[in-house]
């Protein structure tokens, strides 16, 4: 924002804004640079990097994404790596440290200068112990304090949550669910899970399992799920179940292949995605009967299919959810697409990071 825009938004006089900006940039909180607006010289005001940078780390089932962001959540460095399906905590956390070190190097800083790390993993996390809540959901990461383990490696405060909760956090802070008092974020990709966002924070439950919509029973006699039950939503609508239908097809190995094929007009891919949408819609109807969200945001890799997935989802939701005067909850795609959890990890780190500079002392009384 420029100084003039700041004055416009806050209603303060330009002189007051100029004074405040001068004072804050003197204390290192703000950074000013010259730019132009409608052809005129203007002063661009941003939060200074010196307040600190945080790192967001997101392990999805097949990808590791790492970003370093400044205090305004703007990403200044980002990297990602494809992962094998059965990734394990020790090797992968070591890799995070090495990659983070490299990224800090390229920014001219060091890991200890970061304020905090936000970490997302594709399984619910018990906040009392820092471990994965349910055995079977993420085999390579069970039985260890995930956050503590990374904390010991980087020497920084680490905040951990599930990728669904982080995705929800990103969408509530700066995405499709902004200003919704109650919203649900459904992550549909290799796994299916949801975040229940109440007044801007995820509801965790006692052991962190809240929102595990992927393990809602859809078919009592259905296929056996990795969680140990039968007929869970995941066995019908998650990535592996959908791709299994294309076993004969050599070019169909990833969820993104399926989405691309559907975009290219392949009828069977569209049908398979639509069927997944229908199943998710039934689970989403149960969810909205229990939780009554204002908006349901659908993210994750399969969420990239857009209306191919959402239209049947909405239809199933309409059929099975209790209607209210406002109709059914609004179903929208995630505005952060498949980067939601990464952005959420950054937000989590920023919101919990210890502030290095005492801003309150230096602002005019």
């Amino acid at each position, binding site marked *: 924002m420029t100084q003039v825009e700041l004055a416009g938004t806050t209603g303060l006089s330009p002189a007051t804004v100029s004074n405040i900006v001068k004072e804050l940039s003197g204390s290192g909180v703000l950074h000013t640079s010259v730019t132009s607006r409608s052809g005129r010289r203007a002063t661009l005001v941003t939060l200074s990097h010196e307040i600190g940078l945080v790192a967001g780390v997101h392990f999805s089932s*097949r990808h590791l994404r790492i970003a370093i962001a400044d205090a305004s959540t703007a990403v200044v460095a980002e*990297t*990602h*790596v*494809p*992962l*094998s*399906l*059965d*990734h394990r905590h020790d*090797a992968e956390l070591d*890799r995070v440290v*090495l*990659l983070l070190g*490299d990224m800090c190097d390229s920014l001219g800083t060091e890991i200890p200068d970061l304020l905090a790390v936000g970490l997302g993993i594709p399984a619910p996390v018990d906040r009392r112990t820092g471990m994965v809540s349910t055995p079977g959901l993420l085999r390579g990461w069970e039985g260890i304090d995930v956050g503590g383990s990374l904390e010991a490696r980087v020497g920084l405060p680490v905040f951990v949550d599930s990728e669904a909760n982080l995705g929800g956090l990103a969408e509530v802070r700066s995405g499709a669910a902004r200003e919704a008092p109650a919203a649900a974020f459904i992550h549909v990709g290799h796994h299916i899970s949801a975040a229940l966002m109440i007044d801007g924070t995820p509801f965790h439950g006692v052991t962190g399992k809240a929102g595990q919509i992927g393990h809602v029973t859809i078919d009592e*006699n259905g296929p056996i799920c990795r969680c140990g039950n039968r007929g869970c939503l995941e066995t019908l609508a998650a990535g*592996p179940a959908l*791709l299994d239908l294309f076993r004969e*097809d*050599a*070019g*169909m*190995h990833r969820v993104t*292949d399926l989405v*691309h*094929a559907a975009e*290219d*007009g*392949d009828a*069977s*891919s569209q049908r398979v995605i639509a069927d997944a949408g229908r199943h998710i819609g039934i689970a989403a109807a149960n969810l909205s009967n229990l939780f009554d969200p204002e908006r349901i945001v659908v993210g994750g890799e399969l969420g990239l299919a857009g209306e191919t997935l959402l239209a049947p989802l909405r239809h199933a939701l309409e059929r099975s959810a209790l209607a209210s005067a406002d109709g059914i909850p609004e179903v929208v795609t995630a505005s952060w697409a498949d980067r939601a959890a990464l952005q959420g990890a950054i937000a989590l780190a920023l919101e919990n990071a210890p502030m290095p500079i005492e801003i309150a002392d230096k602002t005019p009384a």
Partner: protein
Amino acid sequence: MTVTSPTKQSGGRPHENVLRLRGVSKRFGAVQALKDIELDVHQGEVVALVGDNGAGKSTLVKVLAGVHPPDSGEIEFEGRTVSIQSPTDSRDLGIATVYQDLALCDNLDVVSNLWLGQELTRGGTLDEVEMEQRSWSLLRELSAKIPSVRIAVASLSGGQRQTVAIARSLIGEPSIVILDEPTAALGVAQTAEVLNLVERLRERGHGVILISHNMADVMAVADRVVVLRLGRNNGTFRVSDVTSETIISAITGATDNAVTRRAAAKTAATPVPGDDLDEEPEA
């Protein structure tokens, strides 16, 4: 530049079988290097070729690259039976190989390396502008992190050099790209760069044959894994179905040795009762 494959369909599916090897054998004197090898590679598919030292991976690559013509067997390329007698045959078909040593000229800049031996000319002189522009667009398409295309390759990092070598193999828009140990001797960040590059190749519709000893890398980017053991096929796996332990046991022969063969012969002789009961009722 577009993916110019004559068999590319508008629907995106089904993916065409680009390369098909059946019964390929190669013998060096008394050594049977390859025996009855089968291999399929489809459009937009990453096939990892793994095996212990001496399993025949490199020989198979050299057969495909035209260095060693096979003694017997059939090679089909895009549905036609072909014979690969020389590296030129291989390149003309659309098979590009990136060797472990990359074969880059350290003293030349990125553009010169990319177009070495296939320079564009206009009116008898080198068309530097066109070459530089096409280099940029190719590198951008691969999301390559190269600071400038006019710096000598010697000053690039290991990952960037690998990127340049892979980009060079794409100049002729090949259908198959063979990468021989692309992540060996690279750091973690450079490995990440190369793995992302393999994903890009896959998205562009190239068939990729990836040779690697690193199981984590193989499991991260490959769609199928073909295991060679002592010059023979020892199993083909879909990555989504198996763990790296299964593949390692196939590489080392833990799944196929004298003991297991004897056990298999025994069970085959006496059929297990209730063998026909394990079908899914609702399938």
